[in-house]
């Protein structure tokens, strides 16, 4: 392939997202993030631990700012993150016109 056509191939190539990988990354960020935030509040301690974060319990049944809650949050965060990441990947790929590869 000539240099020019290779350059064009790079500059015109449109990235395709691996929905599975994106779901995995978002799951890690979501689950890990919520776990770390919960744990951080617990370690910090104080009179009313994680008053605001506790409100997530409205959406994630069983979640609270407590050690068991941190693990429940890890699961919820991961699942929600995975769904969001996967949806973004799927929708993106649909729009750029390539089938998604999970």
């Amino acid at each position, binding site marked *: 392939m000539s240099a020019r056509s290779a350059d064009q191939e790079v500059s015109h190539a449109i990235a395709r997202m691996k929905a599975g990988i994106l779901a995995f990354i978002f799951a890690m960020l979501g689950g890990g993030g919520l776990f770390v935030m919960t744990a951080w509040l617990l370690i910090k301690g104080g009179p009313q631990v994680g008053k605001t974060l506790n409100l997530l319990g409205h959406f994630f049944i069983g979640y609270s700012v407590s050690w068991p809650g941190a693990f429940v949050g890890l699961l919820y965060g991961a699942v929600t993150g995975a769904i969001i990441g996967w949806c973004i990947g799927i929708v*993106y790929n649909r729009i750029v016109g390539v089938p998604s590869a999970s």
Partner: protein
Amino acid sequence: MSTEVKNAVVIGAGPAGLTAAYELAKNGIRSTILEADQLVGGISRTVNYKGYRFDIGGHRFFSKVPLINEVWDDIIDEDMLLRPRLSRILYRNHFFDYPLQAKNALTGLGLFEACMIGLSFARTKVFPSRQERNFEEWVSNRFGYRLYNIFFKTYTEKVWGIPCTEISADWAAQRIKNLSLVEAVRNALLGGGGKTKDGKIITTLIDEFKYPRLGPGMMWECCQSNLESQGNHTKMGRRVERIRHSHGKVECVYARDENGELEEFSGDQFFSTMPLRELVNMMDPAPPDEVIKAANSLAYRDYLTVVLMIKRAEIFPDNWIYIHSPEVKMGRIQNYKNWSPEMVPDYSRTSLGLEYFLWDVDDEWTWSDDRLIDLGLKETVTLKLIEENEVEDGTVVRMKKAYPIYDQHYQSHLDVIRRYLDTIPNLQTIGRNGQHRYNNQDHSMLTGIYAARNVMGAKYNIWAVNVEKEYHEETVSDEKATGDRMIPRRLVPDDDAESVASDAVIRAAFAKLDPFALGSAMGLVFAISLFLATTALILKGGEVVGPHLSLLGHYLIGYKVSWSGAFLGLIEAGIGGFLLGYVGAGLRNWTMSSYTNLLKRRADLDESKDLLDKV
């Protein structure tokens, strides 16, 4: 082409012709080689003058094609030397390292000139020539006008005899390996540029080269005697004058010997390395007028070398030096004993080859040898390299048509000639002037090998050699071989497979994100997420519904946790998500493309550093 070839006729005993005969001989096909001169090797010959040996210029042996290296090893294995390279630029009585080195250039030019060069370089970077139409604009855009003026202009104009503003920029661009973005990124990230896997620097033509002990002619003399021993005769002093053909087939050629006798040589297959312009004019019957006109439009640059024998053991340590000083006409000086110590009969002596690039209509071309030797002597003294009384002897060698000229129209003329030659399949034109291409020995040889294989049924496109850099893997045409033999296909070497894989990864990693698609995807997901979160809270109910989620109203105008708020949030989160995705993708694309362009610019500069060698 038929596989029943009995006898081939090769015109010219230069590298292309002899290699074609060599390949034919390996496959049991006899050939007769007709050479106009009394020496073999063509432009790659070695002349022997009273024991002083010298080439036409200096011929480095270097090839990226394994097949060519094998042939060289086959012909003269032990007599091949590996020589270190040193060649500097002589300008204003100062030697400059080549490729240019900042510190050495600074010392040679002085602080003021160095600052001016720096400023001119900076100016070009800020205000480059919009169009790169000619060589001057092309080089100035890369190195700055001032550096170009000192280190490129004079030498290039000496070699080609035309102002740099009249040399097409394409010509310069062709000489530089144009790395693709992917290659530039791969070299920068994976260290492919000039290093092996264990980190050793790969030596290039810039650092060292192979050279036969007794000069390049030794290779071709050995090749000729090898052929001779197998019954393939080289007939010296036979200038082909006429090529008789009929019904799309060459039947025979007529060559005149030194006594003026015309001799006929017939064969089944013909290979010609003579200049295309001459070949076309020798065809009998003559080709159509437009073909003759095209051939007569091909131009050549001629060359002569004045060789001085000097009573001194050491003059300079370089193999050759580039002469940039405008006050002398010579373009380069070769110091042959630095190519191989055996190029001089007595090591206390030195022979210098002063190279002049001329047109055959220039006055100097017709000067007597004595007058040229005198010119060379005076110029070498002017350059302060020797004293007049040190010169013992001198000689001159002229080489017509040393350089095929790439002018604006040469390609279209070539197309016309090729279309005509295609109608005569048993005549293949090979080599440098045989293809009117700026071929080195290896390219010329490769065309010879491929042409020989073609007569045995292969389907090589010999015109593809030296078109792309990686000609060695890509010259087999798509058609299948029609002969009895299968043409072995090379396995892709592991290194290639590795780089193909890494290129795929690089392409995927550097591919652009579609901002609209990412914006839409994020907009949709954000919108639906907020809508679902709001409805969940509404459905759950309670005294005060979703007081905390309602705080999003600070950012999303009018949003609250209510049914109307849910729909408003849907729209606003959608827009917000879209903008985030769109801008994010744009920023990421911009960063990636700026980075790749930076790597590419660096790689291009790196590739241009041996530009002078390619002039």
